[in-house]
């Protein structure tokens, strides 16, 4: 299946980041540089896991793709179009997203049905037609029943009354209701208890496999990184440090990833001690 997909892909990748730079709070003490000339190409149909420590720029990478901020330099191409200048809401026509915080992906005081009626119009024109169409209600009931969370009879409940796991499962369903060209998952299980996290991960895997979605998933969990996806991108200090292809990834174990991280940490310590040394000598 995987080889088939790679054979079928056209030469042109679905997503290309070329030499992307971003600095926040430039010129102040809070200056952060989460993107320092990132180059990355993602083939259609691939499921990429993004790893990295705190402040490595992995969430920023996803936000740059989604258009949460304008990049300083470089170019982002999506589905053959240069989307670098597109505002967030325009890129939403191509992108589905699930956030780390279960509260971010749904409108809490509105019903499940209301929320899905919004998702059913992702990136499309919203006019004066009835939001709760019979068709939407029927399809929603079926697909929510498939979640096996007992939510199919509670479609009129405010979504804010549900648990984090339920909300993330629904957000995932909302993000993929209209098939997105690219699915962005930003540590979407990090805020959940282990059992809900497993449920949501199983659902994620199922939906991505069924729909053949091109996905970028940020995670902190090495186990998830090993079990899911067909490529791992490891980030460090605003750049791609390692890039494991599907075949390399198959041989990878949790320990390998951990030792990679250990290396990074050691190098960082070294950096600091060298800097300390130089400072002591020259200042």
């Amino acid at each position: 299946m995987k080889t088939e997909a790679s054979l079928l892909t056209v030469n042109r990748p679905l997503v290309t980041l070329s030499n992307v730079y971003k600095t926040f709070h430039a010129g102040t003490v809070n200056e952060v540089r989460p993107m320092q000339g990132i180059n990355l190409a993602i083939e259609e149909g691939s499921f990429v896991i993004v790893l990295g420590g705190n402040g490595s720029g992995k969430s920023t990478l996803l936000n740059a793709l989604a258009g949460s901020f304008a990049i300083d330099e470089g170019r982002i191409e999506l589905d053959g179009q240069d989307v670098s200048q597109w505002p967030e809401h325009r890129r939403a026509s191509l992108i589905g997203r699930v956030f780390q915080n279960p509260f971010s992906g749904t409108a809490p005081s509105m019903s499940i049905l209301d929320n899905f009626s919004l998702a059913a119009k992702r990136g499309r024109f919203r006019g004066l037609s009835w939001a709760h169409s019979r068709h939407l209600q029927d399809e929603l009931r079926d697909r929510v029943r498939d979640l096996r969370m007992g939510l199919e009879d509670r479609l009129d409940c405010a979504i804010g009354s549900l648990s984090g796991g339920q909300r993330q499962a629904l957000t995932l369903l909302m993000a993929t209701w209209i098939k997105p060209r690219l699915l962005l998952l930003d540590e979407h299980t990090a805020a959940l208890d282990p059992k809900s996290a497993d449920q949501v991960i199983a659902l994620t895997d199922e939906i991505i496999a069924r729909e053949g979605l091109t996905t970028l998933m940020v995670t902190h969990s090495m186990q998830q990184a090993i079990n899911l996806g067909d490529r791992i991108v490891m980030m460090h200090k605003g750049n791609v440090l390692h890039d494991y292809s599907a075949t390399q990834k198959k041989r990878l174990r949790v320990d390998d990833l951990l030792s990679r991280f250990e290396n990074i940490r050691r190098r960082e310590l070294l950096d600091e001690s060298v800097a300390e040394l130089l400072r002591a000598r020259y200042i």
Partner: protein
Amino acid sequence: MTLLIGALTLGIILALLALGVYISYRIFDIADITVDGSLTFGAAVASVLLVKHGVNPVWATTAGFIAGAVAGSVSGILQTRFHINSLLAGILVMTALYSVNLHVMGRSNIPFLGAATLSTYCEQAGSVIFSGSETNLWGWIVSSADLTMLLFMFIFVGLIALALWAFLRTDLGTAMRASGDNPQMVKALGGNIEHYRIFGLALSNGLVGLAGALWAQYQNFADVQMGIGMVVWGLASVIIGEALTGATGVGIAIIGTIIGSILFRQLVAIALSFGLNPNDLKLVTAVFVLAALVLPNMMSKFTFRKQKRFL
């Protein structure tokens, strides 16, 4: 009885103002003081068209709505395009509108003095419907003009409320509601939250302008001061409505807001007839809203403490 009908009619007219405040306060979660200016703006535009230009009252009233909507969209543009705090944007537009209103009206007060208005229409219609200038209502003798005005306003505001309810359940209306609830999510689903905010505030202040135009025609004059403190009035109506209905859905909230407005006007009429100094009215309204905002919090703290003792 005449007093009661008067208070009812005014309560229903001001329900439009309350619905406008409901949109800004409950949907977008902002206290939009533009209302104070746009109420007068709607009244000013309508009254000038009626008195100076002899325009048909229906068109003059529509112009009141449009005037309010323009004021609201200016406020919305200040908030979204120029990132001005919603409270400050409201204050700026309200202040600017004070001068604009004086310019539009040409002086601080316009009496209608025999110009054709919705009131005169109702007077004519009333004498036809109830065959005579006075009518017997369950043993009370009331003016048929007043009664017709009340009925007309009741039906009109009911239709507007129905239209608002329907709008809030369309794709656009749902997205607008969500943009106040969770802007991040709406952006991720391809909604332009800036447009929704501008449009929502235009709609909100349009309703307020409409209320102003109707109010002026009901009381037969427009005054440059009539908008002062009206946002608090609207808030009071919304809060009473929520307290009465428990407001879960949009439809119930809309009905609650209308009932809240009518009830609040009744309370004021009763208080005034029992000798409340009209000068204290704004103070009492403000204290009422403050209490309504603070008390639920204090109550829950109190019950929480009580529960804790049992644990």
